[in-house]
């Protein structure tokens, strides 16, 4: 009998040993599907792809009433209260934070300080956009992964101060040498453009403080200006869409791919531009089927026949139509306003120069440098710079210039009150034009203590809805 048990015993032992070994080949649990090492500029390139989304939004475009809905009018009637910022935090901002924190960046993709500086400028830009929409947001404790899953909300004032510092750091650290894989500023000399972009953002952010903290605003404004801002439309931050599906313009997708004639230029825009023969109107709007420019009343609750109104202009919704974000003309209107309110020297004379140049650069930007109708336009009495109504004229021109960049146009309307002829959607239970956007409902569940603290500390009271005001929007 024994000779049976012996091999059996070895066999048993053998299989136990075979299966009890706790070592596996390393390759078996190494994910072959994803890289473990990052490329700083490729992370930046991905973050850049989120830029057009800051403008191309079916929500932001309604608040300053650039577009009206021919059907499905909920968005123009402020039905949605809560908006999700997770996409921005997990997407571009996390990519950029990874670059900023990365200790293993590859200098062959461009000077490492420049990779980090570009990441900081973009981070500041995305974050500026976010805080202007929601107000207080996680910032100092954000993007820490497992280090903090319930980050606290910083006040908007703290965020602005942090972003000013971030932009200062970027400005100071930029050295010669371009970075690779740059979508928005391709070609040689891109780092110089990034530097000007950072300072322009800095300057425009400073101007946001005009109602709430003019002193801080003035000093930041002048610092940014001194560091060197944009000085040509070629410096513009505009997202260059391509004529391919994966990189196409949002509005092309909406109108052409999805065949949705849902967006007409709103009545306030057409009624403001048409009497002045604004050369930009044919770019902004199509004629209706009867051959006229007819704006659609803003915020109606019912569906209309799209053919009766001016749909969004073809030039703006080609597959590769660029999306303008931070532009030279906007900087000029900022300078005009700063001169008028005494933040920079030169008062009305400087204000007029920048105002006139702003209009010209805006027309050049929108009309592909065609300024044939500009001279006549500038002769309109209401367009000619008038010291008595300068702020309104600057505000209105800025509003026109920022066409389609709804969130930015809306922020400037909240800050300046211009244009004054925007009325909330009619017959809408007394709802006013929103002053901020509500937080994502997820936060109420999974970051509740910080969420509650943030809402309780709103600078001018109110609850987490569309009516509370952000810090710089001082009533």
């Amino acid at each position, binding site marked *: 009998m024994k000779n*049976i048990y012996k*091999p*059996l015993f070895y066999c*048993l032992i053998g299989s136990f040993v075979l*299966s*009890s070994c*706790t*070592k*596996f080949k390393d390759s*078996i*649990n*190494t*994910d072959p599907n*994803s*890289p*473990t090492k990052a*490329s700083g500029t*490729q*992370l930046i*390139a*991905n973050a850049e*792809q989120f830029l057009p989304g800051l403008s191309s939004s079916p929500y932001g475009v309604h608040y300053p009433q650039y577009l009206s809905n021919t059907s499905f009018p*909920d968005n123009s009637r402020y*039905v*949605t*209260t*809560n908006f*999700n910022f997770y996409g921005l*935090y*997990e997407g571009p901002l*996390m*990519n950029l934070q*990874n670059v900023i924190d990365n200790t293993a960046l590859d200098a062959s993709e461009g000077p490492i300080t420049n990779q980090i500086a570009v990441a900081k400028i973009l981070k500041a830009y995305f974050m500026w956009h976010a805080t202007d929409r929601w107000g207080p947001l996680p910032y100092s404790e954000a993007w820490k*992964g*497992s280090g903090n*899953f*319930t*980050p606290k909300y910083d006040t908007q004032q703290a965020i602005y101060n942090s972003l000013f510092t971030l932009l200062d750091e970027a400005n100071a650290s930029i050295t010669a040498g371009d970075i690779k*894989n*740059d*979508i928005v500023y391709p070609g040689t000399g891109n780092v110089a453009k990034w530097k000007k972009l950072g300072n322009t953002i800095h300057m425009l952010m400073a101007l946001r403080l005009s109602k709430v903290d003019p002193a801080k605003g003035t000093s930041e404004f002048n610092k940014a200006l001194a560091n060197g801002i944009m000085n040509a439309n070629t410096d513009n931050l505009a997202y260059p869409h*391509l004529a*391919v*599906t*994966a*990189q196409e313009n949002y509005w092309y997708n909406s109108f052409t791919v999805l*065949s949705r*004639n849902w967006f007409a230029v709103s009545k306030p825009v057409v009624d403001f531009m048409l009497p002045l023969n604004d050369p930009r109107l044919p770019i902004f709007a199509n004629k209706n*089927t009867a051959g006229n420019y007819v704006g659609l009343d803003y915020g109606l*609750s019912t*569906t209309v*026949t*799209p*053919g009766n109104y001016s749909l969004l202009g073809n030039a703006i919704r080609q597959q590769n139509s660029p999306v303008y974000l931070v532009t030279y003309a906007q900087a000029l209107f900022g300078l005009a306003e700063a001169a008028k309110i005494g933040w920079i020297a030169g008062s009305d004379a400087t204000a007029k120069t920048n105002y006139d140049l702003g209009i010209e650069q805006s027309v050049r930007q929108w009309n592909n440098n065609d300024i044939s109708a500009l001279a006549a336009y500038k002769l309109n009495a209401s367009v000619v710079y008038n010291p008595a109504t300068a702020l309104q004229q600057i505000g209105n021109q800025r509003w026109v210039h920022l066409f389609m960049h709804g969130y930015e146009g809306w922020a400037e309307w909240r800050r300046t009150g211009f244009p004054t002829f925007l009325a909330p959607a009619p017959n809408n*239970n007394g709802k006013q034009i929103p002053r901020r956007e509500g937080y994502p*409902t*997820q*936060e*109420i*569940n999974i970051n509740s203590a910080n969420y509650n603290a943030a809402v309780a500390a709103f600078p001018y009271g109110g609850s987490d809805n569309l009516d509370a005001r952000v810090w710089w929007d001082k009533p």
Partner: protein
Amino acid sequence: MNRKSLLILLGILTCYAVSYAQTTIKGKVTDENSIGIPGVSVLVKGGTVGASTSGDGTYSIAIPASSTTLIFTSVGFTSQEVAIGAQSIINVQLVSDAKNLTEVVVTALGIKRSEKSIGYATQNIGGDNLTLTKENNVIGSLAGKVAGAQVTGSSGASLGGTQKIKLRSVNSIGGGGAPLMVIDGTPVIDYNFGGTENGVDYGNTSQDINPDDVESINVLKGPAASALYGIRGQYGVLLITTKKGSRGGKKVDITVSSAYTIDKVGNFLPLQNIYGVGNSQVFSKLTNGQNFVNGNDESWGPKMDGTLIRKINSFYPQDPEFGLLSTFDPQPNNIKDYFETGQNINNGISVAGGSENSDYRLSYTNAYTKGTYPNTWLKRNNFSLSSSLDITNKFKVGVNANYANNSGQRPTQGYQGSFTGAVQWFQRNLDVNTLRNYRYADGTILNWNVNPNAAGVITSNKPSDWNNPFFDAYEVLNNDDRNHLFGDINASYQLLPELKISGFVRSDILIQNVTHKEPLGGRNLDNYNVLKAQGTDNNYEFLAQYNKNIQDFSININAGANLYTNKYTQTFQSTVGGLSSPNTYTIAASVDRPTSTSYLRQKQIRSVYAMGSFGFKDTYFLDASIRNDISSALPKDNNSYWYPSVSGSFVFSNLVKWKHLSFGKLRASYAIAGSDLSPFQIVNTYGFGSPYPATSGTISSMVVPDGLKNPGIEPSFANSFEAGIDLRFLNNRLGAAFTYYNQENKNQVINLSVSGASGYDSYVVNAGLIANRGIELTLTGTPVKSKLFSWDITVNYAKNKNQIKELYQDLKVYQLDLNTYSSQTIFLNSTLNQSFGNLVGPGYKRDPATGEKLLGADNLPISVNNVDFGSVVPNYTGGILNNFRIWKFDLAAALSFQSGGKFFSWSQMLAAKSGQSEITAALNDKGINVREPIANGGGVKVSGISSVTGLPVEAYVDARTYYRTNLGTKFYDEWVYDASYIKLRELSLGYSFDASLLAKTPFKAIKLSAVVRNPVMIWQKAPKGVDPSELSSGSSSISWIEKGELQTVRSYGLTLNLKF
């Protein structure tokens, strides 16, 4: 050990065994009806030599010359001793012992044991009860037949869509946890290609098991029962035993079964037939003054009162009705008319037989289903072979092989699916038959969701949201095919009468191909995509089994080892930017750079295990097991873990002398089961972003993924205790099995949803403690038993209470899932100290004092976020199975029920939002249609507390504002329903032809049955139109949302079984 030495070993063993045998005795053991009894133990009295009978009751035993007596023992029969004398053939008839009539149960590792020795709950379902009405999916056929099993699945219209099963409620914080399927010992991964509630449900691979091949399914419910399957058996095991050939004689059994059923759609959501398309009750007019209908998709328009209008087809110059006016009329059947009568043809043949030392069974089944959705079908072929051969008395080999091939063309469920959106957004005035010829002779597509301009010209014939449903059916095609091979080869050697060693190589290989074709002219860009997935799972097993009886003690010890390897690869390609040559479905036709991804996943688990069973006097039994798993998916330094189980039973009926008690057993068990995680969850990586194809060269991009991984992950464990009692009375005419269980699953590996402000949306963590307590009760009875009439009834009932006891650190809510429509979000959460899976979403703001709805200045309700609507987990589930035999007729009826569990119905919500639902055109309390102007007595009556004055208000509000912009948008209280139901699932009436009639025919038996599958929902708490038992959430582990179920299907047909 290499192969050579194994062969030598086997050779030595064989020689040894042969030389040891001296005399061989053969024979057959039968019952009172002369039917062979399998598994009877044949022992030499006072010796160590033994054998057991094969499937037909025959045996063969080699005995030492000194032997004098053989002992025949079998569960359920009185033991018998026979003197050998000079006989070489000994046939024995055993007498059944009512006291001990207990079933033989197949337990873990395929070990057959008598029911009385098992210390935990199992439930056995015979094959006949699985094929009552030819349900295609084995899991689907278990609905209502197992206490504690919750079966949810998609409508029959899905043609083999997902059927999911959960045992003992939700035992995972993340909602996952399906039992392991084991077919003749081979674990078969239930790959699920079900997608989500939106899309095509290609089903799970349990549908590749041919129900006709199934002898029985034994359901091992808790971890104790499944401890020997390791981590894969943590949520229970479905042990499927297939039919086998029988040994002895030269007879060959040939069985032919055929079924033909027709499928009819039912359960339509009640819609209004008064108002037609539009968003105001005023007709749109063309410039020529004609009223017309545009491509709007809501029915808040004018009354369908026969007014002359231009219908949508009158705007197509190619249409015979071009330019003509027609009447604006309701189309009550405009959804029903889309469907066709489905057909199902199922033919199977099996050949089974054996010789003295071998058995075999071969089967082939072919099934064809023509769907109820136009142009959908499913074809299926199943082959199976099982055979075993005794090379010598001691050395046995066997093979089980199953091959399944499926190919289908399936409908799409959910929003914008195969006309599943018809109740959501459509026109009550549109006759779907006018859309049937969807393409004019010149190729132009007839669309309904396009808009003519005021001049009556359709300038863009691209639909905004909805294709012509027939265009979808005939040109937007979803095709899949799958080849699936699973089975094992095995060898065993009886080293000693009490010791057997076995080796198994088990494989489960699956290749799935899926294609999607999107033609030019629809609402989407034309597109072609193709997915190929391949999964290979292998198990290499070694098992040693030792059985010994020493006087009153029985000892049974099993020890084994298992190496499991899993490899899954997938490639996916899709065209981007359209097809360069229309209707040329190849990736090469991609206009832009096509999407192309490849994916590889692999994993290994090494296990050893041992189990011992000890019995005393056939009355007291104790089991213990221990298992060690080493998983490659865990961190290197912490990848090995052990877990034990212990269980015991006490057959007190052996001691209690009460004549009415036929059988009584108490049982209890405690078990720990371990669990690992998917591969690649412990190292953070980067992902690939969209490339930017600039003219100067493509710019690649990279992303930080949204999911954060965790290098510190540990194995997690489930602790489970259960106790129960099995009772049978009155000669087994009445039986009850009761189980109480308490299970805690701790420290599970989950993807924790975290605040996106952290830079990630989820984190892989060990977290949580989910507790389930419940009872299971199965009552069986034979209220009537006579020659002409008998009635068997089985009632299953299970009640479960579920609680989340811990989450992660101080986290109070774990977000499992969410859904957003119209910017309103509803969440599926696990909330601390609550039942698993509460639905939280926008709903009524209520007056804190009275609980009444708060109304705004406009008398419309005010909405708030994050109203808790309750848990998706049912309170109790169960079923009733009745089998009647009346003369030669058999009548079987299977019923299932569920109480509680919430679900969210998108269809009901949107039917109201779009003005199609009956309620949107109901009469108010004044008897006036709610759509009439308020000034004329119309409007919807609302009541509540005014948020302005704080006083109660009763008022009338505009119906469209109420339903379209309010209730249908942001008051989910109205659309979250209780899923309670009672459903008659299966009904069959069979007639067995008299054997005497068949004497002169080649047939041994003929049975003809009329069957009905899913005949009627007897009662449901939720309103008609959405079937809570068919919530079509695809492969997602919890079915809580419905975005457009495929239409309910009821099947009626005949089945014919012939035996030769």
